[in-house]
């Protein structure tokens, strides 16, 4: 079970959270301008790296806020958490 730091509530057990997949997926501004393939890319395609991954979490049983986390998908270490409104951390830090 992961220990996840909510940016507001601090470290809490994973059982208080639910997972939201890859972070920084932005809804296209003009969906009608996209081909089916481009729209499908937004809908379905997600990165699945071995290593550093930026993902979303919801503190579902807590403050009910969404936030982002920088986690290593191999070691499961969470390097940082940041608010939705904050910029993504640079990968080389």
């Amino acid at each position, binding site marked *: *079970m*992961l*220990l996840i730091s909510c940016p507001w509530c601090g470290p809490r*057990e994973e059982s208080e959270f*639910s997972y*939201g997949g890859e972070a920084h997926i*932005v*809804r296209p501004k003009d*969906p*009608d301008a*996209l081909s*089916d393939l481009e*729209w*499908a890319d937004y*809908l379905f395609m997600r990165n699945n790296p071995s290593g550093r991954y930026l993902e*979303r979490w*919801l503190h*579902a049983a807590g403050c*009910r*806020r*969404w936030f982002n986390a920088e986690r290593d998908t191999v*070691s*499961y270490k*969470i390097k940082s958490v940041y608010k*939705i*409104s904050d910029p993504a951390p640079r990968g080389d830090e």
Partner: protein
Amino acid sequence: MKSPLDSSRSQPYRLATGGRIDRAKPLTFTFNGKRLQGYQGDTVASALLANGVRLVGRSFKYHRPRGIVGSGPEEPNAILQVGRGALTTPNLQATEVELAEGLQAGSVNCWPSVEHDIGAINGLFSRFLPPGFYYKTFMWPSRMWKTYERFIRKAAGLGVSPKEPDPDRYDRMNTHCDVLVVGGGPAGLAAALEAGRAGARVILADERRELGGSLLDGRDEIDGAPALEWVNAASRELASMKEVRLLLRSTVFGYYDHNFLTVLQRLSTDSTSISRPLIKERVWRVRAKQVVLATGAIERPLVFPNNDRPGVMLASAVSAYVNRYAVAPGSRPLVFTNNDSAYRTVLDLAEAGIPVQAVVDVRPEPNGPLPSRVKDMGIPVIGGHVIVDVKGTKRVKGVEIMSVDASGERVEGRRRSIRCDLVAVSGGWNPTVHLHCQSGGGTRYDGEKGCFVPDAPAQEERSAGSSKGSFALGDCLGEGLEVGAEAARAAGFGDGRVSTPVPTVEDRAEEPLKAMWVAPSRRPPVREHKQFVDMQEDVTAGDIVLAAREGYDSMQLLNRYTTLGFGTDQGKLGNVNGMGVLANHLGADIESVGTITFRPPYTSVTFGAIAGREIGGLLDPVRKTAIHRWHIEHRAVMEDVGQWKRPWYYPQPGESMEDAVNRECMAARNAVALLDQSTLGKIDVQGPDAAEFLNRVYTNNWLKLGIGRARYGLMLSEDGMVMDDGVVIRHGEQHFYLTTTTGGAASVFSWLERWLQTEWPELEVYLTSVTERWSTIALVGPHSRKLLQDLDSDINFEKSSFPFMSIHSGSLAGFPVQVMRVSFSGELAFEINIESDLALAMWQALMKAGEEYDITPYGTEAMHVLRAEKGFIIVGQDTDGSMTPVDMGMGWLLSKDKDYLGKRSLSRSDCVRKDRKQLVGLLSTDGTTILPEGTQLVDDPSAGIPVPISGHVTSSYASACLGHPIALALVKAGRARKGSIIYAALRDGRHVKAEIVSPVFYDPQGERQRV
């Protein structure tokens, strides 16, 4: 010398003095039906040995006679069924079961008895039962598999499951600490002391019933006094520290992410007491800032021909039985070793007055301090020799030894026999690295120590003592103190410096061992008498060589093919030797053959402990509405809707379900009826951007909805599929209220918040769940308005003032309410929202006022029928996440003027396919057959397999109102097929003819709900 054993006593192998047993508390127990005696403080294993019981079981595959090998959780052979009836537990290790008065234990895997077991016949056929034999046998002819399976089932497995429910309770506890110390031996005690003294929150867990670890099994001295005095002082100091928690009889069985570990605490070991239920076990779920692993080491046996005979034991276990339990596991012991530590066992036996016949040492010239002491005592030390055979089948009678040549790899010369009844074996020590590896840490091979030691930790953890490869007691204590202080400092307590000097220990330096994975013998492994590597799984050195020849030549392949390490002992004695045998065969270094992955649990955990308290009535939350009590009192049959209990139907005496549902439906259509609808999700939406937000998440348009008006809304997921639906009400310019399905309440709320927070944070709108705040009573039927008008109210219920799809707030029967004219039944209906504390009283008031109209409560079944008669869909019943609104005939709800979630997907090529399934109605042509929900629909009942599927039935009911069954279904291009025939393929092979019709069976103009 006078023997310390007295065979005339009831426990012929109990030593007259010593041990940590309580001789003032004798206990009687039975083993395989025979009554035996032991003492408080014994394990079943030590008591059996005290009674001279050598044969305790039969091996898994070959049914070879087996005896006790170890003294702890590494025990592979003494697997017993303990207890009777509801309390019987299979496959407990005799070394781990504390003796209790009246305990009943028996061998598993043998019939009719362990002494005479017909399964032994397997041994005769062992040539035909090599590893993986089951992959190559029982395959032909394939139709015989069912027959083979029945016999294999009988032969497979060990032990018997209980057939009655477990009366005991299992608990769970979440806890946090600064330092978790695993292991209460010298290193662990030292670490816990330092961490505790620094003020940290410490948990110290040990699997035994008392602290001391390996010190309990030996005769060490600390600071010039018996080591156990130091243990007692440490225990007292730890017990006095408020922030130190001691967990005894507690095995740390799992190490997971971010320093989360699980501990199984055995609270009651009593399998006999009738005073139940008791809390038997508790799982501690520990989040630790820092972890200290002081898990010790487990001795590794040597592998030689017939090394599984009862009486061949680990040398350290022999010492444990002698020192801790005052039991002599034999009267004529012989020691076989490749290292110095086994000489301690010789000294322990000698101290107890039991003459050791000889020490057979694979090293040519053992000259260390321990071997020298033994030689000085006159005990023969035969260097440069190995055991090449063990005599005796049900108990050891003697061994044959041979000399090893200069290369160390072959035997030479003549065999020499030595009589003995106990062989104490040591091949070195394996640090217990399981938890370290579970946490993600790796290991490296230490050539000098001949074992794998922990490499860099992957989490905030440190190893100390034998678990790190530091076997000397002085090092254990020193490292424990350092690591404890360091762990406390890392957790924010103390400065990391040890607070006391290291206790003094007289460490006798040891000479190196000679690593030997399988002892040289007369013949190669595949042709030699069985040399067991894994006792419990009956895996021999020959099996490993054969498997490697077949291509299973790395550990991950080898262990799966041979089942090495798969038993309940999880290869604690066999895995490293197995790696060595493979390495020898391949001519490679042991580090290069790959490793076995350690997974939790370290030792077996009961299902009860994993389930904890969430069983029976507490398995899942049972959610009840505010009116629940009334439903139960009026004999409603309840159904589960997610976690909710909802009335399904209210049968009157003598009524079947069909009778009740028919009556309820007719009441709703012809008189007045009421439904507890409180479970629907309700969300309050407020803010300047409220309407804009709703526009983005629903398919229809909200900007122009009038205040006090309601409209049906449809929600799609981004892939264009129907996700949820409900009614949206406008309370004000910037204030809306929306409902969701019962099952969608939480997910829709979550969905909406997700878009708001992550995609549209600029929108000024707040969402608040009011699902529980409001209870909802649907009052339905032609007399519903009259009933409401009979009650005291400031609301004008006339149509002119209260049109369909509108809302009024006010008071009703003295209660503050919000009333909406919304209809899921198609009848004149009013949904009354009332604060939940008052809902029951409101319901009762309506029932009372409704008496003159013959008011009828109705449940979810009647609700389903009523809406189906009107062709109203239920999301999740008629949809399955793969239906678009166009499929469902709801194209009219799709706004063309704005974007909304899911809109773009509706024009994807797959979503505009002409042959997509569409919602239709079905009428069975015979007018009586009710098509089962889920039935597949086909066009041609005589088509050959595979029959093309044209659709399926989603909802199906008897309709009292219409007088014949109706069904809703999804049929490919169904709307264009109205009037045509389709066939429902029933499970029994019959086909039922049905006509495809409109899904609206009743009042297609929707006039009745608008009156």
